[in-house]
């Protein structure tokens, strides 16, 4: 497989798919080149991400990055969340082919946007 087992598991069993009805932070971003989309909704209580949900459309790395990101976010402080990097997401998937790195970039970008949109 060009993709790791970990990666495929995210695809078969996405973590935290969906949307939060009571989200405090929401963002939907798309990659203008390929049209991939990622939507993230977060419930933030006491400076911590209490819950994270994602929706994604596009090539498998976008789906898997969404799933991996949503899983990583649970329990982090907002500060910690802000510092999540592309490399960490790629690492959580057991690596990504170089031509698919853009999926992790979309994930980070959507996260930053969501945190920026946070309702205070």
């Amino acid at each position, binding site marked *: 497989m060009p993709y790791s087992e970990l990666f*495929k598991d995210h*695809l078969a069993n*996405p973590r935290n798919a969906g*949307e939060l009805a009571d989200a405090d932070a929401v963002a939907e971003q798309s990659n203008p080149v390929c049209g991939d989309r990622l939507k993230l909704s977060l419930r933030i209580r006491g400076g911590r991400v209490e819950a994270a949900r994602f929706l994604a*459309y*596009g090539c*498998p790395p976008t*789906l898997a990055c969404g799933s991996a990101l949503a899983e990583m976010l649970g329990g982090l402080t907002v500060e910690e969340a802000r510092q999540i990097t592309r490399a960490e997401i790629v690492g959580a998937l057991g690596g990504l082919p170089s031509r698919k790195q853009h999926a992790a970039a979309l994930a980070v970008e959507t996260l930053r946007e969501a945190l920026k949109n946070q309702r205070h």
Partner: protein
Amino acid sequence: MRRVYLDNSATTPVDPRVVEAMMPYLFERFGNPSSVHFYGQEARSAVDRARREVAALVGARAGEVVFLSGGTEANNLAIRGVCEQQRERGRHIITTAIEHSSVRAICDALERRGWEVTRLPVYEDGIVRLEDVRAALRDDTVLVSVMLANNEIGTIQPVADIGALVRERRAAGQKHLWLHTDAVQAIGRMRTDVEELGCDLMSMSAHKLYAPKGAGALYVRRGTRLAPQNVGGHQERERRGGTEAVPLLVAFGEAARLARLELDERIEHLRHLRDRFEAGVADSVSDIVFNGDRVRRLPNISNISFRYIEGEGLLINLDMQGVAVSTGSACSSGSLEPSPVIRALGRDDELARGSIRFSLGRDTTDEEVAYVLEALPRAVENLRRLSPLYQKAQAERACAPV
């Protein structure tokens, strides 16, 4: 894990009868056909026999079949061979928007070297129009290259009509106009006869015909001159150098023989299963579009666009359930382009990205189709649950006045 292979247009498993025919040429009959001694002549006559079988499958004479390493090489030799040979006569080529990537790549390369290329459109049915060919023909056109059956949606192109048109033009004095057709997907899946088609060149590949990868052939009508591409040695009447891949050619010959004898029954089997499959999908999955003309197409291909999701994700989900299929981008992984073939039908990007090719083979069973009909709705559902496009559409539907 249970595995079902529905990617027979990418490649086929080798028929055990074909392997059996080939085996002696790996062992005791291993000679080089260029050798004068017993071993060489034994190999030579095996290659001759294979050549007659491949010729017979497509209604050609043995001397018109040039053995090569595959369909890609056949397309290269046909198109570059004619264009280089005819460079002084004209530098205009007509082809279509839905050719295989190898034909596309060769035409692009010639374009960079000064040839002019007209790429004819197809319409929603995935079929080129004869009138478009007629309108595109110029006095300096040297080659028309139109595939016989498309590899992604299976649509059959009006090559026989184009053949008649080309002959007409030739009779009217345009002596240096040639017709090539890429029949890699067609042979063994539909009746294919070079006289009926009126083509001058035709590409074939063994590995789509239940023979091993590494062999192909180009039909070259008597009198059609080509600049050879791979030179050295006197093989293939100076049209292609290199020691012949004897065991593979024997296998190709046997596969051609079997395809000729079993053609009708294969077509019937494939069409029956494919139709059952499509009826099943239509019943169990919403928001789908069947791609390509439903009638004028190969019996083994079903190409379906699934709204709101993307092909590769669906492919991987199916793969994880043991079902092997492909998407329009499988042949050109690395690019983010939606399938150019589906785009050429006039579909939007989303449908082009969400297209999947299911291609059946002579080994496919009723039971396998039933298994896929269970796996597919699950996989589609899985991905749609994640899809922001689907969620939005669902929400809109819920709100829409009835």
